[in-house]
C-alpha cells in the first residue's frame, strides 16, 4: 500500500519543466483544455474553476435545498453576459405537479414562483431574451430541457430538474450532458442536495450552502467535482447586497441603538392603521 502511494509525492517534488510530458492532475490550466469557459463574474470563484469560469457546453450541477441563499445571483453575471450578446436563455421552472415526493415545504412554494422581470432587468438579464417553461410533470421537464439543448443557438439554460431514482437520473443527466456538448451554451441544472452522493455525469458539481460569518453572510460554494484536483475548502462569495449585512450586523450587535425591527414594524403598522 505504501509503495503505491510513493510515486505521487516524488513527481510533485520534481521540477515541472523536467517532466514536461507528464500530465499534472492539479494543474487547472491543463484540466481546462477540454472546454471554453465563460467568466462567472466572481474572481475568487473563477480562480478555483478550471479554465477560469463556467465551462461552456458542459453540464453544471448546482445542489442546494434552500431557495434564497443566492443561487441565482451566483449565475446572474454569466446570464447577463449571455443576454447582452443577444443569446436566448431558457428557464425550465420547477414542475407544477411532479415533485410531491420531495416533501419539502420550500419546493412546494417554488412550484408557483416565477422569475421577477424587474429584478432580472436590474441584474442585467433581459427578460425578453428568455423563454420560460413551467412543465406539469417530470417527463415534460426532461423533454423541454432536451429540446432546448437541441436548438442550435442557445445562450444559457437553467433547469430545476425533477428527481426520481438515482440510476434513472444518471441516465437522463448523461443524455443531457452529451447533448450539451454539441454547442457552447451554459447549462445549469439545479437539484436538491440529497443528490450529492448520487453519481452524476456533470463536469462541474457545486454544493451551495450558507456561510454565516460574524459580520456578513456569504454563499459558500463547495466544489464537489471539477476537472483537476479536488478542492476541499468551500469558496465564500458575497452575492447579495452588502448593505443588508451591515444592517444585520448592527442589529445583531448588542450596543446598537437602532430600533428593533419588529418594534419598528409595529410602530409603522400602527401609524398606517391610524390613518
Amino acid at each position: 500500500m505504501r509503495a503505491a502511494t510513493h510515486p505521487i509525492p516524488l513527481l510533485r517534488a520534481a521540477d515541472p519543466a523536467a517532466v514536461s510530458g507528464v500530465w499534472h492532475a492539479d494543474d487547472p490550466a491543463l484540466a481546462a483544455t477540454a472546454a471554453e469557459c465563460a467568466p462567472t463574474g466572481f474572481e475568487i470563484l473563477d480562480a478555483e474553476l478550471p479554465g477560469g469560469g463556467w465551462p461552456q457546453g458542459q453540464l453544471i450541477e448546482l445542489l442546494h435545498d434552500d431557495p434564497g441563499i443566492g443561487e441565482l445571483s451566483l449565475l446572474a453575471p454569466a446570464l447577463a453576459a449571455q443576454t447582452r450578446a443577444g443569446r436566448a436563455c431558457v428557464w425550465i421552472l420547477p414542475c407544477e405537479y411532479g415533485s410531491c415526493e420531495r416533501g419539502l415545504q420550500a419546493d412546494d412554494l417554488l412550484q408557483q414562483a416565477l422569475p421577477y422581470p424587474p429584478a432580472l432587468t436590474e441584474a442585467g438579464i433581459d427578460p425578453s431574451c428568455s423563454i420560460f417553461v413551467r412543465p406539469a410533470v417530470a417527463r415534460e421537464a426532461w423533454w423541454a430541457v432536451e429540446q432546448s439543448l437541441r436548438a442550435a443557438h442557445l445562450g444559457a439554460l437553467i433547469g430545476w430538474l425533477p428527481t426520481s431514482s438515482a440510476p434513472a437520473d444518471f441516465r437522463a443527466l448523461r443524455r443531457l450532458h452529451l447533448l450539451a456538448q454539441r454547442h457552447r451554451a451554459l447549462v445549469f441544472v439545479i437539484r436538491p442536495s440529497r443528490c450529492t452522493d448520487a453519481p452524476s455525469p456533470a463536469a462541474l458539481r457545486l454544493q451551495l450552502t450558507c456561510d454565516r460569518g460574524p459580520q456578513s453572510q456569504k454563499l459558500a460554494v463547495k466544489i464537489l467535482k471539477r476537472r483537476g484536483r479536488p478542492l476541499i475548502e468551500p469558496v465564500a462569495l458575497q452575492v447579495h447586497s452588502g448593505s443588508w449585512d451591515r444592517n444585520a450586523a448592527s442589529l445583531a450587535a448588542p450596543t446598537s441603538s437602532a430600533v428593533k425591527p419588529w418594534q419598528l414594524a409595529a410602530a409603522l403598522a400602527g401609524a398606517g392603521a391610524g390613518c
Partner: protein
Amino acid sequence: MALWLAVCLPALPLQLAARAIRCAGPLAITEGPRERPLIAFCNDPARAAGIAPAMKLAAAQALARTLAVVPRTPDHERDALHELACWAYQFSAQVTIRPPTLLRSYGGQASPSSSGLVLETGGSERLFGGRSELHRRIRRGLGSLGYRAAFGYAATPGAAWLIGTARASGLPARDAQAGGQLQSALAPLPLTMLEWDVDTTRTLHALGLNTIGQVLGLPRDAFARRFGAHRLDQLDRALGLQPDPQPAFSPPARFAARIELPADVTQSAQLMFPAHRLLRSLEGFLRGHDAGAAELIFTAHHNPRGVRTITATRIALALAAPERDAGRLAKLLAERLTRVSLPEPAVELSLTVERLAPFQALNASLLPPSQDSVRDGLDWLQLAETLHARLGSERVFQLQAVDDHRPEHAIRIAPLAAERSGPRAPIRLAPALQRPLLILAAPQPLAQQHELPDYRGELALIAGPERIEVGWWDFGDPHRPTVHRDYFVARNQRGQTLWIYRELKQPRGWFLHGFFC
C-alpha cells in the same frame, strides 16, 4: 414566347384514394348505379389479381379478397384539382383546370378520361432558373404531393393538352415547343385524344381516318359541313391558327384541402403522413400568394356511426411567426399530435388556413452554420414553437415587466411573440429598491411567533421597511385590489434571504412574497 405545360393526372380517382397511404394493396374505384357498381379504375396489384375496368364489383371481389373499394366522388376530384391549381399558382400566373370528364363509354374503346391542369410556363421559366429546372421542380413537387402525372409541352394550350393526355395513356408523343412543330407533333396522335363524341369517332374510324393528321388532310369546308365547324375550330386553336383564350384561375384567399384516408386511422401519429401531403400543398399555395400561415387548423373527420354523427377532432397549430416551410410545419405538427387522441377512427383529414399573413423569409446562411453564427432569431423561434406546440401556451411563456407599484402586478405572463419587444425601453426600478429574483404568484401567509414572522426558523429583518400603499385607482376591481403593505428583507438561520411583508390592515399578518435567490 408562350409555352404551355399540360399536367395530366391519369386515373385521378385512384391517385386520390392512394395518396394518403404509403403502399396499397389491391384498390379499385367503382362507378355506376349503386346497386350494380362497376370497376372504373384499379391499381396494379388489383390488375395483377385479374381485375380490369368495367368489371362488376362482385366479380372483382371474388378475384381479390382484400380489395379496397372506394366509390368515385366527382366532387372530391374537382376539389383536388382546385387545390392542385392553387399549388401550381406558385409556378405560373396562368393556370387552367381541365375538369374530369364524367361521360365514359363502357365496353368499347376506353376514352382517356384524364383531368389535370394547363399552365403557362414560358413567362416564368427564367425566374426558376431555366425550363429544365422549372420542370424538375414541378415534377418533384407533384411527387411530394402524392400525384403521378404525365407532362406535355406545346406552344398552344390545346396542343399541350393533347400531347399530355396521349402520354398519360401510354402513347409516344413529341413536345412541340415551337409553333412550327405543332402540325408534325399532333399529326400522329390518334383521334380518340380529341374526346369527340363516340358517334363521330366511330364514323371517322369507319372512313379509315385514325389520326389527327389524316383529319387535317381532309378538305376543310366538306369536313365542316359534315361534322360541324366547331370541330375544325378546336383543331385550329390547338395548331395556333386561332386564338385560344383560357379561363383564368384566380386562387381563393383561404386555403382548404382535404385528403381521404382509405384505411381507418386510429392513432394520431398515423395522421403525419397524410398531413405532410397537405402541408406540401399548403406550402405551394402560400408561395403562390407570397404569404405565410400563422394558424393552421387540421380537422380529422370520423365516420358517422349509424345515424349519430361524431364531432370532428380539431387540431389547431398556432405559430409565433408566419411560416410556410412544410418541413418545419411538419416538425411542429408531430409535437402537437402527441397531445391529440382520436376518439374514433378518422376517415378524412382536412387542413384549413383562414387568414394569410405576410411572410418574411429568413435568410439561410451561405456558410455552414458556425458556432458563432447569428442565426439567433430563427433558432429561437423554432425552439419556442416546438416547446409551444407540445406544452401549450399556459406552460411556455415570456415574462414582461409592467410599470406598476404593486409587486404582483409588475409582472405579466405574455405569450411568445414573433419579435422581441425591442424598441420599448426597459422599466427600471428606482436604484434604492431591492426586488427578489423569484416572486410568488400568490403571497404565502407566514406563521407568527410573538409578532415575529417565522419561515423554517425565526426570521431576522435586515432591510426595510419599504411601504407600498397604492392601487386606490383600481377601486372595486376584485382582481387588482389596493395594497397596504410594509416590505422587509428577512433572513432565517438557514441563510435564506426572503422578501416578506406585513399587511397594514388588521389582522396585520405576515406574508412571504419572494426569494432573493
